[in-house]
């Protein structure tokens, strides 16, 4: 069941990095190459592959499926958002879901994925399950890419201590020919192309034994013909959801608004601070002379360029300082968050104190010293 540990004892000396890490890296490289948005890991076990994938910035939906709920629950909290994810919500949205169920059953929650990974999964399947597996994954889920990895039995002679199979729960282990013929047949049947590769190089001189782990990468030949394919096979939900985490994202209006208010208020505060300092320069305080001004950093640099335009400068009227929104909008961070000036106005309306015409952020400076 614990796919990561099964080879640790015998092979840690042989493979560097360890084989399981090489398998994960293989999946990560694949993700980098094809940039899938929705990825499902079948037989996700203790969720360690999912945990690695959550850092891939192209992925917006991650799902895991396993037959053993306890195994998933053991470390599923590592898939929860971190405090920092709430503090600095990311641009992308991300939802992670874990399902308890079997790859021999169809569930609509597995539809619409771009990439489905089955790392060291099929050798754990009973014959009846293995029979249904291609129809569920290739026929029903029908993602653009499927990755299947499984032990190469020809390699076992090189592994000390392996008697029959590498793991007591394995129902079979295939030779290269066996795996390839199964894969080619499956690909043909569901209109996929397949390429074979693997991880865990055989020793020099024994190349024909093949990789320790053999991998098939299946690519769907034709683009999905729309919803018709799926609607032909209505199914009921049979998986049980054991975990779901929705990551805070700027795509969510709530977080976007908060981020914009924060950035606008903060930018305005700094501009006010600079503005007031400038006004105070003519006072009698020798330690406030321009000579002790901080060297130009990226912020004041930006500020310098901005205030060239006269009507964009902060100004004082009575007890209030006004920082024009147009100036604030020029800051790259604000601009990037809002996109348009109209959006900026809409997001901060009622949340930030503005001048009566709504064109500037307003501060009362009556109670401030200097």
């Amino acid at each position: 069941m614990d796919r990561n540990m099964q080879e640790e004892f015998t092979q840690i000396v042989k493979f560097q990095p360890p084989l399981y890490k090489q398998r994960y890296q293989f999946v990560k490289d694949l993700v980098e190459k094809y940039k899938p948005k929705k990825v499902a890991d079948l037989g996700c076990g203790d969720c360690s592959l999912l945990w690695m994938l959550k850092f891939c910035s192209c992925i917006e939906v991650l799902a895991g499926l396993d037959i053993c709920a306890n195994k998933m629950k053991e470390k599923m909290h590592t898939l929860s958002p971190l405090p920092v994810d709430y503090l600095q919500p990311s641009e992308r949205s991300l939802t992670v879901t874990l399902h308890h169920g079997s790859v021999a059953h169809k569930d609509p929650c597995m539809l619409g994925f771009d990439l489905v990974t089955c790392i060291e999964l099929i050798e754990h399947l009973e014959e009846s399950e293995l029979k249904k597996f291609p129809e569920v994954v290739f026929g029903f889920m029908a993602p653009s890419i499927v990755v299947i990895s499984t032990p190469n039995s020809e390699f076992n002679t090189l592994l000390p201590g392996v008697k029959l199979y590498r793991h007591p729960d394995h129902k079979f282990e295939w030779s290269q020919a066996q795996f390839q013929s199964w894969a080619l047949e499956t690909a043909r049947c569901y209109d996929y192309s397949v390429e074979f590769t693997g991880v865990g190089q055989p020793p020099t001189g024994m190349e024909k034994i093949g990789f320790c782990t053999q991998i098939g990468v299946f690519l769907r030949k034709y683009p999905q013909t729309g919803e018709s394919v799926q609607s032909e096979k209505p199914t009921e939900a049979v998986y049980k959801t054991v975990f779901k985490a929705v990551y805070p994202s700027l795509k969510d209006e709530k977080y976007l608004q908060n981020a914009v208010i924060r950035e606008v208020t903060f930018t305005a505060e700094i501009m006010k601070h600079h503005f007031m300092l400038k006004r105070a320069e003519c006072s009698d305080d020798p330690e406030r002379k321009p000579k002790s001004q901080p060297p130009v950093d990226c912020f004041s640099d930006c500020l310098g360029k901005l205030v060239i335009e006269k009507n964009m400068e902060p100004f004082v009227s009575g007890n209030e300082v006004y920082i024009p929104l147009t100036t604030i909008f020029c800051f790259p961070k604000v601009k990037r968050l809002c996109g348009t000036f109209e959006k900026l106005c809409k997001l901060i309306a009622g949340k930030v104190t503005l001048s009566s015409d709504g064109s500037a952020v307003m501060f009362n400076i009556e109670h401030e010293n200097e």
Partner: protein
Amino acid sequence: TIGLQVSSGLQDLSLRDRGGRRRDFHDLGVNTRQAMVHVQESKTGCSGRMIKLTTNHFRLTSRPQWALYQYHVGYSPEMEARRLRSALLFQHEETIGRTHAFDGSILFLPKKLESKVTELFSRTRNGDDVKITVTLTNELPPTSPTCLQFYNIIFRRLLKMLNLQQIGRNYYNPSDPVSIPNHRLMVWLGFTSSILQYEENIMLCADVSHKVLREETVLDTMHSLHSQVGEERFRDACAKELIGLIVLTKYNNRTYRIDDIDWDNNPKGTFRKSDGSEMSFVEYYKKQYNIEISDWMQPVLISQMKRKRGNIQGSVALIPELCSLTGLTDKMRSDFNMMKDLAIHTRLPPEQRQRELGRLLTYIQKDDNVQKELRNWGLSFDYKSVSFTGRVVQGEKIFQSGTMFDYNPQFADWTKETRGVPLIRAVPMDSWLLIYTRRNYDVANTLLQSLFKVTPSMGIRMNKPNMIEVDDRTETYLRVLQQRVTPDTNIVVCILSSSRKDKYDAIKKYLCTDCPIPSQCVLARTLSKPQTIMTVATKIALQMNCKMGGELWSVEIPLKQVMIVGIDCYHDTVSGRQSIAGFVASLNQTVTRWFSRCVVQSRGQELVDGIKACLQTALRNWSKWNKCLPSRIFVYRDGVGDGQLNTLVNYEVPQFLDCLKSIGTDYSPRLTVIVVKKRVGARFFAEIGGGLRNPPPGTVVDTVVTRPEWYDFFIVSQTVKNGCVAPTHYNVVYDTSQLKPDHVQRLTYKLCHMYYNWSGIIRVPAPCQYAHKLAFLVGQSIHREPNLMLSDRLYYL
């Protein structure tokens, strides 16, 4: 010799919480009461009127005859990996059951296995057979220390199940934060919890907690510091602002303390991975977490690993860009506006606080998984908080120059009552300096006029000062002080235009060490409002009088020949990690004059050696003032952290006794040592008119929520305008006074009236607050022991 023993109940406990910390935060197993015969029967007081109170404690209940079964689990052949050990053991869930807690060698079960020794057989993935021997080692009653630790771990599991996020020791709810955008702050609501054995029951003490998080990275903070202070002071400013702060990272759920900043390193620098290979930070974060570090010139933060992993004590390097700050800096705490904005969200009045707490308990009650977990262990909670009766002791009379005052117990303040009444001892201001900048000329004159108006009624004789105008530079201030201060100068008053710390520090340092003269710094801003100037001038006059050795008021202290000592610590996290202990001891019968010293200790040294020396000089001074040695000594010891009680009892108290012995063979005064703790989880609410209110000052609690193994009590002495009042916990760890608990409680409460910087009742006995003030001034500004010439005055107020 003093018969204090610490039970070893926790020694063999190995069940660990996340992070594997073994520190005993609750000071379990320190049994001090057993050595004090006079409080064996009862440690409760009797005076005052009864008051109905509720608290934030909830009873933990278990099945009758409940016990926790502790097993040792052995493997043959020996298995190293903890995960493997667990995997092999849990292949036998049908035997051991689904409810268990296992740390790799010790297994806790809610049920007893059929036989004392159970042998199980598992097979590893390699097909090797392993024999597992599960042996019953202990049957733990619900009140054993191990069980208590265990309850706390289980409760934390429950909070995690409720999807709360752990930050530090507490759990917070991230889904409903309060954002305070103008300070870039975010506040999370959460809970503190601890389960302990109290007088009669095991109870959960839960409280609402707020976590302040900063919506900016450490790199952002560095950028804004750079624009504030400039290149020259940049590194210094970063060290001051950042070292000691706790950060969260973008990629894992751990907190780190910033211990240092490595300016010679940057993200392109390399580190050695556990497999021995070298890798740059940029490469590592890209590969491991797909994170692109954008600024390759930033320095690297260093965090020391607290616990030893495989006996290697190492440090971790962190990238500022990937770290978010938590909590408040001292600078932020002193920002009045920020604290005001925060208080709106964090200062919850009693009703609201209990309501929030109620919400947590509702979550616990409603969540099926949580209830299942509790049921499996055979535990449950009373979802209604504990109620009991406390006592409100009578208010004190304030004496000032032969006049006696009562104060309104609701406000616990006598500013109005004592206005215009002569002070007990008014020190004349015959020769004094008033230093100001040109810009503050008017302000200086306003202050002077107002002082002339308020001082006569206090009995303070005041001459015209030496008025000195300076330009606003630190050097100028110092030069003026060097030239104009004479040995006859009573006090130096400086009007400062900004709260810039370096100027203040320089003035204080000079006048506390090289040239020991009392000084008073005033911010020009505080004098600028005409409507408050008289109040401000009154406060300043009182403060100056104390700094010169004056006395303001007194309360009745019925004990004779008594010396009261207060000790508090300040830990300087920035410059060289000094620790400073403030030590204050009374000099006279009325407890209105104090002898003050402090101990500056660099890292690794023990504070207690210095404290011993302080106690010796204090006794010498007391005998000089009173022509005899005190027959009773009360030590109020503040600044004892969670888990340090053991050290205090076993090391510090014997040192006090040693010190007394060294005075003379025939000298054996009665000694009482009381540990004072302000940061406690307990909250009390008075049930008044169907609602919950803060209990009035003078509320004493010495039953139900105190600990059976201690001689301890709570006093609510101060009042608060908003939010909930926090009781102060007093733990009498050593006592040969033979006084009744009631008298010790009353004396403690009296001493809360004696802090001269506040004409009202404060949270701790005055000597503790004086000691705190002293340690803070030395730790923040002076960094070495002030001149002993000042030690008979409250120069640090």
